[in-house]
């Protein structure tokens, strides 16, 4: 039986207020619910909640619903929404901020590739300063769904054939500088803690 009742006690208005203080999310409470974001989003047709509805949930404080929606993982950061919003809300920044929070709170299906890719990318770049496409994709596939590798074979071969896939592990010399830089920074995610 489908039930769509929402109790007000499930809402967390304080969280909504915090979100509205994150960079780019300042306009949260001025959203008109006009749908220009969703209308221009190339992915909204695949989303369980359109970006507009995510905003509606966030500002009412329905944290869990917003964070566990697939919308944030489908978002490709193309900035259509932000460019079209009549309230100049940076919806893309909001999506980023929800991604960060969802990863930290583990509110995503365990083998979903998108958040895994983000984490592997982060780890690789944080350590070596550069991203090595081959190794990145390999690690993402192993952690999410190794069968993916099969579908990627053909693609990979095309790339190898045309000299576009390098197996080298890229790294920069100044990795110690990276440590110094991130040392002064917060641990991952602390910004929103």
């Amino acid at each position, binding site marked *: 039986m489908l039930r769509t009742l929402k109790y007000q006690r499930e809402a967390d208005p304080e969280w909504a207020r915090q979100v509205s203080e994150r960079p780019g999310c300042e306009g949260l409470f001025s959203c008109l619910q006009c749908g220009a974001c969703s209308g221009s989003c190339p992915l909204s047709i695949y989303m369980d909640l359109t970006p507009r509805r995510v905003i509606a949930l966030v500002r009412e404080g329905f944290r869990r619903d917003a964070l566990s929606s697939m919308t944030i993982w489908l978002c490709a950061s193309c900035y*259509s929404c932000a460019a079209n919003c009549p309230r100049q809300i940076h919806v893309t920044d909001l999506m980023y901020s929800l991604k960060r929070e969802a990863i930290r709170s583990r509110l995503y299906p365990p083998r979903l590739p998108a958040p895994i890719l983000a984490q592997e990318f982060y780890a690789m770049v944080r350590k070596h300063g550069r991203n090595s496409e081959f190794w990145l994709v390999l690690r993402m596939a192993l952690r999410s769904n190794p069968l993916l590798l099969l579908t990627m074979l053909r693609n990979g071969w095309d790339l190898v054939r045309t000299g576009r896939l390098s197996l080298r592990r890229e790294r920069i010399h100044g990795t110690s500088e990276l440590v110094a830089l991130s040392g002064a920074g917060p641990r991952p995610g602390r910004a929103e803690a």
Partner: protein
Amino acid sequence: MSERDGLRIGVYVCHCGTNIAGTVDVRAVAESAAALPGVAVSRDYKYMCSDPGQDLIRQDIQKFGLNRIVVAACSPHLHEHTFRTATRTGGLNEFYFQMVNIREQDSWVHEHKGAATRKAIDLVRAAARRVARHRALEKSRTPIHPAVLVVGGGIAGIHAALTLANAGKHVYLVEREPSIGGHMAKFDKTFPTLDCAACILTPKMSAVKNHPNITLWTYSEVTAVEGYIGNYKATIARRPRYIDEDLCAGCLECIDACVFRQAKVPDEFNEDLSRRKPIYVPFPQAVPLVPVIDPEACIEFHSHKCKKTCVTACGERHAVNLRAEEKLERIDIGSIVLATGFRAYDARRSANYGYGVYPNVYTALEVERLINASGPTAGEVVLRDGRTPQTVGIVHCVGSRDENTNRWCSRVCCMYSLKLAHLVKERTGAEVFNFYIDMRTPGKGFEEFYQKLLSERVHFVRGRVAEVTDWALDSSEEGRLVIRVEDTLAGLFRRIPVDMVILSTGLEPQPDAGDVRRLFNISSSPEGFFLERHPKLAPVNTFTEGVLLAGCCQGPKDIPDTVAQAGAAAAEALALIDAGSVETDPNTAYVMEEACSGCKTCVPLCPYHAISFAQAARKAEINQALCKGCGTCVAACPSSSIGQNLFEDDEIFEESEGLLAYA
């Protein structure tokens, strides 16, 4: 005057409910004032402007023998007059009064209570020091010239002019275009009653033309204004239309005779949807019905080799005069009504809607012309390629409610979109979609009109259109325009193929509103519409006395509201004229003869020509009737021998010292 000389000041600090008292500790301000030299009584009170508040001043004058009054309250714009009157009726000269603004300049703009209170204390101290130096002065009266200048001949200007003229006042109506009528003249029908725009407008336009009390100057603009309430002087430049209005009989044979067989020039009045000749009348009901020649397009103005068939056609009347020149008119008036209207938002600025790229994307004004029986298609709604649209999408809020373009709601677009939906459906039988963010129908009969449209099965999709595109996904979309939008109510993303898109463009200030504002010395709100003196209580007045507002130049509104406001502006002008004169502050400048060296620096500087040079005495002389108290000469005099009532040096020095005497 000092304490020793018997100075007795009364200080009154107003709470203004919580407007002031919410941020300023009024009790502390009153207490600190009580300790100032010369202060005999100091109080705080809930509403100083109320009758009991004013009585307090009057009674204290009697009871404590006060001889100076300071009120710390709101802006002098609002209540200086109130408290000066209380001072006078209490038995003192009304200029023994000084007002301190601790609301607009303090409590409303600060948040920190302690700091706001300290600021109020400083301001009150400054006023107490200043008021001690005040002199007794008398107000003067200036007569009001009974003629009125109305600028802009849209429905607002027309209605204001007729009201004033019917009351027996002389009106100069100045319109920039070749005909009066404004935007309303372009419409076929008006919401919500769908009455015929021409039927209600043209009688008023001809009434203007024929009224003995109205001087109508079209194709003209005001180029200079000087003076002050009751006594303005304006200069009007009348562009040559090359057809003499007095000689022309309106037969329009010259237009037929023009060597241009085909009309080739884009017709502005038809939103460029048709062409006109270099000699033309903008529309058949134009007032005055006198052709005008467009020198940009006329051959004679470029090569001087035209056969001038227009001149021949006019024959004995000799109304066509290709050598006509601009004429300047100078007039005296007592008040001015500004009715310069609006401009429609340029749809090209919203690039995602494809205006100017896809030929079948139209603006609302263009469709108004298509629907109009005297428009480019004689009232038929057809696309540029001649087809009748089967499906039409109307996009609301184009250039409205949008931080990227214009932030405000244009107030009329929802209703005119409904009107266009009805008319397009009626003319073509097309399926019509309205795309709206919020449906705003708050006027009399408006909601009923919306209901009517709903029952006519016009579609209403709630969602701001993301894009109009010719990207087709299948054969049903092939060759058509596709509207991409989130249907926020159904919770769907939709692609709706249509044949015609109508963009409901918002209302903006006229592009030259800034120049007009400076010319008439008034203010405008941040978006550029002219600013009324008070949004509720003085909606047609400006901060410049005698300059009044009517219609869309003050902000977007529909015709009923425009006409109501024009009537109100006319009534304000009539009230001024019938009062006969206005009181003016005695803030004039005067020459201290003994100090004047006769250098004549001041003479050419006075914008009101109030200063003359007395040859015999070799001193400057200021005509008190002409002086407007601008202070230019006071500041310019190298020997400091010009003083100014109400702004005497010692008053200003005392005030400054009082302000800086904290601690």
